[in-house]
């Protein structure tokens, strides 16, 4: 921000002629923050127009009249300071303006405005805050730093998808993530493929991943619809406006080179608690091929009648058939293994980037390169990303200037699969008695016949490393060029016309390969991908008129055309002929498809701002969008917004209050939309995936014959865009010399006419109808708090807190629809349901009495006597948290700064399949005690507490029955609260004293990321779940775990 401020200061003050009258004053202006000199500070004589600005070393020289009494020092981002003139040297230490009253922020359509003039909430994050721990993933780098947003990361896998959700969700099944705008150009940020149900395959990254956080100068989050309204149909989810580093504001003439490198090491963030007593098997007996660990005591294995070695020459040992299969000595001593810890490796993340920039009077340029290399904690996962960017602007003459911005990114990710394809199922639940890492994973001489402790519903994770491939590679270019015409009609009137043409184009190729031998079968391959090209034409005219001393007017008119073309391909091959060549040419059944889509939105927009006396700020916008993806004659939509900011602290009686520095109240109202997809009803090829099938048991064309049936998704010709009406009120206060600031916002969104595939009764013969239906409302409270409890010359303590409480409730669905499936299984599933918060987990509940107490089976003959029973399905928990509290604290002592970012997510539930399955398999610590008697904590039909004693010597299978047969069939058992407190970031940064190396600034840092301090969820890090869509955060089953990072970084600038 300071660089921009400097630039503005130069414009504002200029080099004014100073009249020659006597006294000369010199001095240096330094910052209280870091003791560094501040260039560009405006120094003026109070009550006159005399003034200058400080030079690069923070020095100034000023001739002042003899009678001048006071100098005023001002600088954007710093508290304005006055100094009495006494002597000829006046050195000033400026305090930073904690909240940045005069900060300029980039708002919709690249319009720059004073933060104080805004009638709606925005929040910005600068490069330094963002990059404290060098996270290669922008979403992760933002966690805990912005109020009102919930950032959902899917797992610790490199390149894992993540979603930013601002003020809750608006769409049931569609996109709820914000629009990303980089340097004035909207770019693709969502995943090119939706992970759908989230129960098969691997995660699919979202395209915000292509952004190198190191290239970012600042991020401004437009949270409310009013802030974003100029984006019309794309505005409903808020906007993330990213400004990348440019040469702007740098020292004139001198090239600036910045090089930084960070390296971190990742460890799996949590190890589940395992039982270590019982062997593989069931019903108390060892069995060598089962997934269950309900066998004999591990110490008793040598006594097993079939496999035990006692009494047949292998005293103290037992026979492991898998070792025999591997051609090794099958007789081993029983031992306990921790297959989880054995498997995970130390991941390494290395990011390097270099940037050169230079500025002169007529322009500037910046060139950046970045490389990120990540090796995941799970075998065969990783990410590599290359980024290159160039940006330049040049002033051609007094009226014209041109510029461009070009970015290239290549992202390659190696992934693993989850849920029903769980690559890590065996890592999670291999029996403690089985040496998963030590026993070979294939038979000798045949790498494609697996050796595993269980049936090959899941592959051996070590075999997977060598044979399965889940990979994606994206090559992307985005950027824009512009020409700007600027005319100053009079001193008070200015017109700027800007035309910008941008392009965002990427191709992603995916490969999903289950190698020959996977699941005991002959494997399959799926090559698919997308080429996506968007061009964006944007014309804006900006007219500023200072009407008089009190009134200022700003009018903007614009036209935007956004055109997207997409071509996707899909090649699916089943049955490889032989192993070692996992290629589509080796597959015996190959089907392929290709699809092409186009989409265009044309928008006309206007904005009008009027301000009065720096006290009242009014803004109104309107945008009319015409969208191709809607039905004919139903394509044109208008979206208005109004906002008002009132700076109360400008009132005279408040001005007198010493302790109050700034007070603003603001309010806004906006309507924005979200378009849907409409097609004339069509026929399509039948698809046989899903259900019990892992592949496609029938794949057309069959023996050269094709067939087509009425598509089971129909489209409503009366489709209209979904509409979000929102209002927002807020207040900003800055007190005690700006050392304490608070920014509170309440907003309410009413979303109507959601577009979604309304599920039809199966008996209609179709699955769904794309139509409008539904209502959602969101109440959101956001609080940002800034505090500088200590501020001395050498030591500063800054605190900031972000609090969000967002209630997102589904009021209505389409007539006859009570819920919408979002993902998961038939049960449990994640869905939207009327009257529930969005989304909820739905599934089989415990059978309960009317008091909600869990009932037990009282029929003595049943295996589950005295145990709970499955009841009707119902809502088991809501996914969204009650509130999120993020906080950061920074201690700065001289050249050292220590900062920490915390996040506390409170409330919310998830389906933790892995937790339930650990119990089902008999691997969790909970199942350790199988010999004591127990009484299940439930109730009998007559309302008395359950007193049926199960287990003990006479009832040895009871614990197995309870966990393996009873609880595992009740989805509610798998639901856990997932509140957590995390230390998101901890970093220690040391700036080498200036001139340690001449003309070179060096800083070094050490940091840690994602340290789980506490969570309600047993055994796992709660931030690990299936899906890159609206089920994210709610549904987990064999998902890749999270990682904790420790690392260090160095930055060199010269």
């Amino acid at each position, binding site marked *: 921000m300071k660089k921009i401020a400097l630039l503005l200061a130069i414009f504002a003050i200029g080099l004014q002629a100073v009249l020659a009258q006597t006294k000369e004053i010199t001095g240096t202006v330094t910052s209280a923050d870091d003791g560094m000199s501040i260039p560009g500070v405006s120094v003026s004589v109070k009550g006159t127009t005399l003034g200058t600005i400080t030079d690069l070393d923070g020095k100034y020289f000023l001739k002042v009249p003899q009678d001048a009494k006071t100098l005023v020092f001002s600088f954007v981002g710093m508290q304005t300071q006055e100094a009495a003139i006494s002597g000829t040297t006046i050195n000033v230490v400026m305090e930073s303006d904690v909240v940045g009253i005069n900060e300029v922020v980039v708002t919709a359509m690249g319009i720059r405005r004073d933060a104080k003039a805004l009638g709606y909430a925005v929040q910005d994050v600068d490069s330094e805050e963002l990059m404290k721990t060098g996270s290669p993933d922008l979403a992760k780098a933002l966690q805990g730093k912005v109020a009102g947003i919930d950032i959902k990361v899917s797992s610790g896998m490199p390149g894992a998808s993540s979603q930013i959700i601002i003020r809750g969700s608006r769409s049931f099944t569609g996109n709820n993530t914000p629009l990303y705008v980089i340097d004035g150009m909207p770019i693709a940020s969502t995943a090119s493929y939706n992970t759908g149900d989230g129960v098969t395959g691997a995660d699919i990254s979202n395209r915000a991943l292509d952004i190198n956080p190191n290239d970012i100068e600042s991020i401004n989050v437009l949270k409310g619809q009013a802030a974003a309204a100029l984006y019309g149909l794309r505005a409903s989810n808020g906007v993330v406006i990213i400004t990348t580093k440019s040469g702007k504001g740098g020292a004139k003439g001198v090239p600036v080179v910045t090089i930084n490198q960070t390296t971190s090491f990742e460890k799996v963030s949590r190890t589940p608690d395992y039982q270590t007593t019982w062997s593989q098997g069931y019903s108390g007996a060892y069995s060598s091929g089962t997934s269950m660990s309900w066998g004999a005591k591990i110490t008793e294995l040598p006594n097993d009648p079939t496999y035990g070695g006692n009494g047949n020459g292998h005293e103290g040992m037992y026979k492991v058939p898998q070792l025999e299969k591997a051609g090794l000595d099958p007789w081993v001593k029983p031992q306990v293994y921790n297959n989880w810890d054995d498997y995970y490796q130390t991941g390494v993340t290395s990011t390097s980037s270099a940037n050169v920039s230079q500025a002169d009077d007529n322009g500037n340029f910046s060139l950046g390169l970045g490389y990120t290399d990540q090796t995941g904690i799970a075998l065969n996962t990783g990410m590599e990303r290359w980024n290159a960017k160039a940006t330049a602007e040049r002033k051609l003459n007094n009226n014209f200037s041109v510029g461009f911005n070009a970015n290239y990114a290549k992202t390659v990710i190696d992934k693993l699969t989850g849920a029903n394809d769980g690559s890590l199922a065996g890592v999670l639940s291999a029996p403690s008695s089985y040496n998963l890492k030590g026993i070979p994973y294939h038979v000798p001489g045949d790498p494609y016949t697996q050796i595993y402790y269980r049936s090959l519903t899941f592959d051996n994770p070590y075999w997977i490393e060598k044979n399965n491939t889940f990979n994606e590679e994206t090559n992307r270019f985005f950027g824009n060029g512009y020409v700007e015409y600027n005319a100053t009609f009079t001193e008070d009137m200015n017109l700027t016309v800007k035309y910008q043409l941008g392009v965002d184009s990427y191709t992603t190729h995916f490969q999903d390969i289950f190698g020959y031998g996977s699941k005991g079968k002959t494997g399959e391959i799926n090559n698919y991908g997308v080429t996506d090209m968007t061009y964006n034409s944007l014309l804006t005219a900006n007219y500023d008129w200072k009407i008089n001393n009190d009134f200022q007017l700003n009018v903007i008119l614009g036209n935007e055309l956004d055109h997207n073309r997409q071509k996707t391909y899909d090649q699916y091959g089943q049955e490889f002929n032989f192993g070692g060549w996992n290629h589509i040419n080796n597959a015996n059944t190959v089907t392929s498809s290709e699809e092409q889509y186009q*989409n265009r939105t044309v928008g006309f927009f206007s904005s009008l701002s009027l301000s009065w006396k720096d006290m009242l700020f009014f803004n109104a916008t309107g945008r009319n969008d015409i969208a191709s*993806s809607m039905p004919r004659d139903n394509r044109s939509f208008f979206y208005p917004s109004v906002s008002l900011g009132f700076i109360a602290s400008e009132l005279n009686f408040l001005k007198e209050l010493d302790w109050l520095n700034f007070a603003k109240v603001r309010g806004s109202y906006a309507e924005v939309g979200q378009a849907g997809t409409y*097609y004339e009803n069509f026929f399509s090829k039948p698809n046989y995936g899903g259900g019990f099938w892992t592949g496609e048991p029938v794949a057309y064309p069959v023996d050269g*014959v094709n*067939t087509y049936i009425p598509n089971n998704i129909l489209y*409503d010709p009366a489709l209209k865009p979904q509409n979000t009406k929102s209002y927002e009120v807020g207040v900003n206060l800055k007190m005690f010399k700006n050392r304490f600031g608070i920014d509170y916002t309440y907003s309410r969104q009413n979303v109507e006419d959601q577009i979604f595939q309304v599920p039809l009764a*199966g008996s209609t013969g179709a699955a769904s109808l794309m139509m409008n239906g539904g209502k959602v409302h969101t109440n959101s409270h956001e609080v940002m708090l800034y505090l500088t409890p200590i501020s001395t010359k050498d030591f500063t303590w800054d605190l900031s807190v972000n609090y969000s409480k967002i209630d997102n409730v589904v009021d209505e669905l389409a007539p006859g629809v009570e819920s919408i499936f979002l993902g998961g299984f*038939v049960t449990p599933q994640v869905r939207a349901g009327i009257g529930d918060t969005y989304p909820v987990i739905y599934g089989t509940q415990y059978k309960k009495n009317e008091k909600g107490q869990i009932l037990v089976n009282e029929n003595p003959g049943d295996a589950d006597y005295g145990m709970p029973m499955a009841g009707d399905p119902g809502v088991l928990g809501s996914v969204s948290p009650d509130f999120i509290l993020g906080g950061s604290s920074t201690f700065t002592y001289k050249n050292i700064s220590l900062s920490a970012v915390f996040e506390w997510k409170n409330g919310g539930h998830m389906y933790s399949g892995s937790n339930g399955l650990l119990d089902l398999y008999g691997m969790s610590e909970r199942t350790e005690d199988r010999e004591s008697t127990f009484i299940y904590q439930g109730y009998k039909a007559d309302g008395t507490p359950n007193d049926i004693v199960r287990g003990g010597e006479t009832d040895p299978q009871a614990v197995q029955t309870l966990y393996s047969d009873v609880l595992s069939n009740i989805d509610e058992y798998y639901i856990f609260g997932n509140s957590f407190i995390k230390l998101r970031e901890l970093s220690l940064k040391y700036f080498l004293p200036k001139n340690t190396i001449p003309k070179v600034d060096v800083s070094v840092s050490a940091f840690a990321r994602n340290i789980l301090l506490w969570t309600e969820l047993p055994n796992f890090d709660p931030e690990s779940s299936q899906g890159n869509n609206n089920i994210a955060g709610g549904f987990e089953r064999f998902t890749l775990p999270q990682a904790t990072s420790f690392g260090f970084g160095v930055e060199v600038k010269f």
Partner: protein
Amino acid sequence: MKKYINKLIIACCAVVVYSCSEDTMDDINKNVNDPTDVSSSLIITEAMTSSAFSVTGSDLAFYSSVYVEHNVGVYNQMYNAEIRSNEPQSSTTYNNSWNSIYQNLLNLKTIIEKCSEGGSEEGNFHTLGIAQTLTAYNLAILTDVMGDVPWTEALQPGVIFTPKLDKQEDIYNEIFTLLDNATTNLAKETTFPLLGKQDFIYGGNAASIAKWIKFANGLKARYTMRLSHKSADYDAVISYANLSFTNASEQCEFNYNGTTTKSPFQQFFLDRDYFGASKSFHDKLVERNDPRDAILFKPYDEDGELLFAPNGSPNQAQGVYAISAISSLTAPTYLLSYHEVEFLKAEAFARKNELDDAKDALKNAIIAACGKDNIGISAEDAEAYYQDEVLPLLTDQAATLKEIMVQKYIAFFEEEAVEAYNDIRRLKAMGNDFIKIDNPLKFPLRFTYGSEDVTTNENVRNAYGDGTYVYTENVWWAGGTR
């Protein structure tokens, strides 16, 4: 200068307006990936495949297989079905089948409309007849396992959102009407071309039409027999059966090529591995010294133990119990087998106490059943088995009837499990507890409705209730009310 600027502005405006005109936008939004209409011959192929694979061959057969004890569910959903935990009464269990059947009925309705009066292919009688036959077939499977189901208000997506249920009795009348119309239409001359390779079942050549007629007649025999508890007409069964298949080469079977089409039971094993070999089924074979006992099962591991799973109380364990040895990727799905037609005849004769005819039909049925491709017992060996082991059991009418039904039950292993499930329920209703079920737990009398209707269609939701009706209420033809 100024006039150029004006012209430029006008030109720009024209471009902008054109860029978002309705015609331009229509062009942009045109779906280039899918057709908006196709001929009936391109639809009917899927109607056949889906009838075989999705409707008859998959989920309904798998669950039936557990209930009739052809297989034992040893893992996950099938295990739950085995121990009668949740699955039998949950609306989600058969949801995929429910949807498949209705989607298939909609496909067939589309064909029937095209080929009927006023349709774009009016006069395409053969395709019409085949579509009517398959409609009757799909509808019968649906109502047999689920009872009263939506029909008259069904299949109107976007028009009727909550179809009401029709009585099973009315649906059965509809089935017979459809089959009558089908045989009439199939017998007509038409100028439309034969289906050719689009007919996956009979090959679409000139001879195929006669086979479709035989299939329709065979279905009439099956469904007439089905109503025996309500209104027995064994003479009709026999006369319909006589108009049906005369040998196995005519039977209505769907063959899988093993690559682009894969037989459901084997694919289910490969993808899920939820079945173990059934102890009670094995016992029945042993009792009869049946040569199939050595053919139908194999140990899970080649050299492992041939361990049969106890019905109702297996361990939830994969890789332990023996498995079916006749599942293969090319094992056909029978929509109606020749041996079933012979069994129908045998039962009808036996019920009429015409035991010689019954025995002839039974012998034919056993030989055909033993001769299935994936069993491969020669006609001589099968006949020897009949003479040595079966014939001695046929001591009187009751014993003959019983053995016919047990033999039919054995012959249905494992692809024809749904029909076995229908038979068991009909026999129980008729007081003929011929097939011994070892599982001591409750026997599901029917299948639940699909959850996609239970959640969105109040008519079905009310009928579903809490799902426990599956243990208490028979379908109409088995003596229930709905």
